[in-house]
């Protein structure tokens, strides 16, 4: 509990406990019992590591268990076999110092923008004034100063994402987990949000696991791209992205030759899996 408070209240300590932010996923397997009584293997022996402060993108075809992996890293779900270790400690229950951003905006519609951002500190029992100040500061950082008293339904999709981003980052997480956070946005808004995410991430440098379908987005944002196979999910390949940081605008970086080269390499690996997954679902539908 004490460590949670430290993380939440003193900005800039993220770098101090660097080693705590290492995520080691080894031999992760998850099986479900289907309603028909069969065992369905969603994940089969997934292993990869995210170094402290590293931005790791996970790409793979639909239904390859990406989201399942994330829920086990955050402690929302438990693995059937294998383990997730965060900072050397095995994940049991909700992992400390983790924030999660979902594809659907998980804001509380009955709370104002400020109330939504305040959730993290309130749950961690941060003193009210301190929490308020830090929530206002984070809203300013995501460019929403002046919108504190609005309700989520009064905001655009992009603005709601910013609120979610502020709500996720206000706890100064060691680990930020993002499940296709910008998947529902239009292309232009997505590019702007990605650029903003990068600049915020550079301020507090949590380790990030970022799920996406969009290979361009993955290469533009990440230090490391993990390609997963489809059903059951496992790691097919891991690519290190050596584009220099800070990367600036996500839209600009797409035209660099190195970007295009990496994008091609990864796509060659991914394509086969996507086609296989597509054939499976198309076959299932017929």
């Amino acid at each position, binding site marked *: 509990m004490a460590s949670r408070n430290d993380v939440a209240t003193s900005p800039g300590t993220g770098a101090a406990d660097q080693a705590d932010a290492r995520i080691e996923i080894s031999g992760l397997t998850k099986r479900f019992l289907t309603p028909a009584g069969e065992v369905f293997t969603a994940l089969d022996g997934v292993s990869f590591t995210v170094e402290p402060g590293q931005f790791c993108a996970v790409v793979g075809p639909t239904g390859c268990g990406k989201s399942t992996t994330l829920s086990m890293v*955050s402690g929302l779900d438990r693995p059937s076999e294998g383990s997730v270790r965060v900072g050397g400690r095995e994940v049991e229950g*909700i992992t400390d110092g983790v924030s999660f951003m979902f594809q659907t905006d998980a804001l509380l519609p009955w709370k104002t923008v400020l109330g939504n951002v305040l959730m993290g500190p309130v749950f961690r029992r941060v003193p009210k004034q301190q929490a308020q100040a830090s929530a206002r500061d984070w809203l300013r950082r995501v460019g929403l100063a002046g919108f504190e008293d609005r309700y989520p339904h009064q905001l655009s999709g992009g603005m709601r994402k910013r609120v979610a981003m502020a709500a996720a980052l206000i706890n100064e997480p060691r680990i930020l987990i993002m499940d296709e956070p910008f998947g529902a946005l239009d292309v232009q808004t997505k590019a702007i949000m990605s650029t903003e995410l990068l600049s915020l991430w550079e301020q507090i440098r949590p380790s990030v696991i970022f799920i996406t379908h969009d290979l361009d987005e993955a290469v533009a944002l990440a230090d490391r791209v993990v390609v997963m196979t489809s059903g059951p999910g496992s790691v097919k390949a891991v690519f290190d992205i050596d584009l220099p940081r800070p990367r600036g605008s996500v839209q600009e970086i797409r035209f660099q030759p190195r970007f295009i080269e990496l994008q091609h390499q990864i796509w060659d690996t991914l394509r086969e899996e996507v086609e296989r997954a597509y054939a499976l679902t198309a076959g299932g539908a017929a």
Partner: protein
Amino acid sequence: MTTASTASTTAIADVKDGAARTARRAARRRTALVWAGRIALAAFVIGGWQLSTMWGIVDPFFYGQPSGIWKRLVELFQHGTQFGSFYQNIWTTIQEALAGFAVGAVTGVVFGVALGQSRYLSDVLGPYIKMVNAIPRIVLGSIFIVAFGIGVTPKILLAAVLVFFIVFFNAFQGVREVDRSVLANVRVLGASRMQITRHVVVPSALTWIIASLHSAFGFAIVGALVGEVLGAQSGLGLVIKTAQNNFDPNGVFATMLVIAVIVLGAEWLIGKLERRLLSWRPPAPTEANSL
């Protein structure tokens, strides 16, 4: 150039002004038409009733008569009933209905939220609640009167039982409908079980609960009235029963009218509460927006 653009701006403003005026006129016309229709319908039904009793098509001895109902209503308010003033009887019924409503709504919400969150509890208690719900609960009134006498307690209990099930099922469903990713989000943010209930589950279920309160108050009144008809010393149910025994349909209709006014009043109050508690909801798209 400048003059031309100013001129065109004024022209546009004029057009906009004109459009707004036409839209307002259309809206006013529509409201007037709606009210004309409402008044015409009421005049047709009440007038038709009055005329058909006056012409002898319908016997006012059995079916009452609007003018007679009005006379009886004035009489009731002026001279009261054989068991105290009319106001006193109204107050008895309101008290019973309100107490039953409060007890039923609170227990309904508590049970609904508890069972909605606990799979085990809902698996254990679910079948029994369904069974009790299948019983015609009005009959419970007889048992309550045998057990608790003809005071206010059995009426409150009957009203509470009727209200409980409506509120319970809605609260339960409301809790079940809580968005999964919202729940996951607050759990990751470090919320405890109590915090989840307070910040997420209850506000989320509130939409359902408040919707159920609208119909629940009607049932609270039904519970109180049926209890009074079954046996009481005062209350509107007793007034109705007495009128029935005296072959006085006008008395029954007059009391019915009073009850309708009470329920509408309660409905209005619940509507106000709803707007207050659910002010975060996006406004429903109305006719006015699409004009």
